[in-house]
């Protein structure tokens, strides 16, 4: 679960990391009233789940509450990369002297946290990695030891940083590490970490990614997730415990399967055959006919999707259940008649399943194997 800036900053504040004063503005809110406790000038930032908002006009400055009001209202009408802006963060503008980069990530190589720092903050860390690799230091953290002061001293000496910031920085690093551990983060990033005066640092932007599997112990994050704009189909799928994965906007093929490995393999083969997958849906385990029907309906709610490839390797799942689910969905009247389902099944009760499928109509194509299915999709040229 990726957090929006304002939510990430809320966590930083809760963990004693200094941030600017600010408020989150939504539609129909009295903006002038909301910002009255903030000192002008202001910075306004749209809160959306994508990068590059600055270039897209999603960051603006205002000298007065009146101007902030005007700009925020404009922003709340914007759409950036197809995402509607629903929230704008208005904060006190900061005069910063310099910018650093600081993050803690889950390091899959060492199976432990990793501290990343760069004295070049405010830019994309990937650009720094490419253009100034010597300006990034990555330090694996011993899981049982945590972050010790000598590691921070090392960073300061390596980049000849002003020691008057040592105390403030140490406190921020230790608090960010606590946040990382206690909130099950896979990423906790402050960029830029701004130098704003004598020994004073401020987290100006924040990215955090929290492990989805841990959400049962973070009710506030679940609340946040429920509160934000999201892909409707992702939300709908989640209600059935499916995982709906948008792949590419231009794709008109969809994939449904009972495991992410199979889904990835299908996407790879379809793509290799020169066609584009728009979305995929992972059923997880235990697919009954009802659930299959719901999955098929959700897939075709995306009007770009013309063809659905279902590949189920049964094992315990019964093939006839799957077939009945497909039949139910296609005959529900909720799916347009020109939509096609290519289906490949393997497992218990396969013959019964094939019989059911063969009786539905032309828009159901049976495949013998994954490659057969992929070929049948491409021969139809969607």
């Amino acid at each position, binding site marked *: 679960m990726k957090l929006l800036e304002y939510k990430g900053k809320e966590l930083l504040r809760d963990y004693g990391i200094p941030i600017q004063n600010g408020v989150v503005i939504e539609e129909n809110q009295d903006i002038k009233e909301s910002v009255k406790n903030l000192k002008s000038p202001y910075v306004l930032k749209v809160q959306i789940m994508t990068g590059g908002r600055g270039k897209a006009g999603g960051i603006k400055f205002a000298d007065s509450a009146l101007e902030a009001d005007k700009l925020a209202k404009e922003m709340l009408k914007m759409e950036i990369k197809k995402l509607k802006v629903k929230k704008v963060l208005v904060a006190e503008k900061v005069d910063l002297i310099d910018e650093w980069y600081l993050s803690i990530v*889950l390091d*899959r*190589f060492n*199976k*432990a*946290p990793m501290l990343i720092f760069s004295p070049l903050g405010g830019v994309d860390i*990937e650009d720094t*990695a490419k253009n100034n690799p010597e300006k990034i230091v990555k330090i694996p953290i011993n*899981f*049982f030891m945590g972050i010790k002061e000598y590691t921070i001293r090392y960073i300061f000496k390596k980049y000849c940083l002003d020691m008057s910031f040592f105390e403030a920085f140490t406190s921020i690093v230790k608090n960010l590490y606590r946040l990382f*551990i206690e909130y*099950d983060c*896979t990423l906790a990033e402050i960029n830029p970490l701004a130098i704003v005066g004598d020994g004073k640092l401020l987290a100006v932007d924040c990215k955090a990614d929290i*492990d*989805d*599997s*841990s959400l*049962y*112990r973070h009710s506030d994050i679940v609340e946040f997730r429920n509160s934000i704009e999201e892909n409707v189909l992702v939300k709908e799928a989640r209600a059935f415990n499916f*995982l709906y*994965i*948008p*792949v*590419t906007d231009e794709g008109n093929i969809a994939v449904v*399967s*009972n*495991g*992410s*490995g*199979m*889904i*990835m*393999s299908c*996407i*790879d*083969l379809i*793509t*290799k055959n020169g066609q584009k*997958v728009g979305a*995929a849906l*992972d059923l*997880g385990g235990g697919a009954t006919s009802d659930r299959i029907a719901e999955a098929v309906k959700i897939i075709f709610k995306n009007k770009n999707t013309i063809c659905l490839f279902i590949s189920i*390797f*049964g*094992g*315990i799942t019964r093939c006839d259940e799957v077939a009945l689910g497909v039949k139910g969905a296609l005959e529900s009247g909720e799916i347009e008649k020109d939509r096609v389902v290519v289906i490949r099944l*393997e*497992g218990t009760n396969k013959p019964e399943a094939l019989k059911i499928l063969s009786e539905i109509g032309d828009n159901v194509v049976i495949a013998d*194997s*994954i*490659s057969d299915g992929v070929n049948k999709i491409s021969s139809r040229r969607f």
Partner: protein
Amino acid sequence: MSILIDENTKLIIQGITGREGTFHGERMIAYGTKVVGGVTPGKGGQNVFGVPVFDTVKQAYEETGANTSVLFVPAKFTAEGAYEAIDAKIPLVITIAEHVPVHDMMNVYNLARKSDSIVVGPNSFGIISPGKSKAGFMHDKIFSQGNVGIMSRSATNCYETVFLLTNEGIGQSTVIGIGGDMIPGSSFIDFLPMFEKDEQTGIIVLIGEIGGSDEEIAAEYIKKYVKKPVVALIAGKNAPKGTSMGHAGAIVSADGTGSADNKEQKLSEAGVIIAESTEHIVKIIKEMQ
């Protein structure tokens, strides 16, 4: 021979009285696995399908001499269950649950590496040495005994491969579900030396996917130490960047490492034959036989 489990495996099931534990426990016994006991706190002294239930793993270990434990417990209790098995000095601990918090596994991983236990999973279908023993919930009908050793991060791609192999009359020595999570208890690198040493195994199949660096680490090891032929499939070339694909593992790092291209290149340089699909894996192996 086979690796990790065989006819001498003495298995306990943590969570044996739960729905999944009971269901798959009976199937494991039916397959021939020696299930010597189970653990459910508070239900010690009971019997399920003829198997004694204990309150703690340590007790089960002391009473039965179990050498393997499989955990059919919910995700949120998996870490504690794994600790308990490690602490009781069970040599092989297999965790099945999906959606185990990755920080829990970071903890388990770092503890396990200090211990003598091998942890497999989470989000694993288990381990099977066809014809000898199975510890997990895999659909055992599709497996057959033979000389192909398989380890896979994906269950579905693995089943598909095994199904096609068996259809072609090609059996397997041991098949391991590594699990697709970000921090698996064990990975390719841990099993490669075992497969290389195992007499029954003639060909090694590695089914990986985007994300992480376990395939790259495996490639380095293969280059240096593995003489047996290795066939690999990397799934997820066209997965959307930075999005979770269900497997927490299938997230391509923003900086390009962990990509399918990188993995295939490193494996290829190590002499591994790269397959395009599960069917392709089987085709390659068929030609080798």
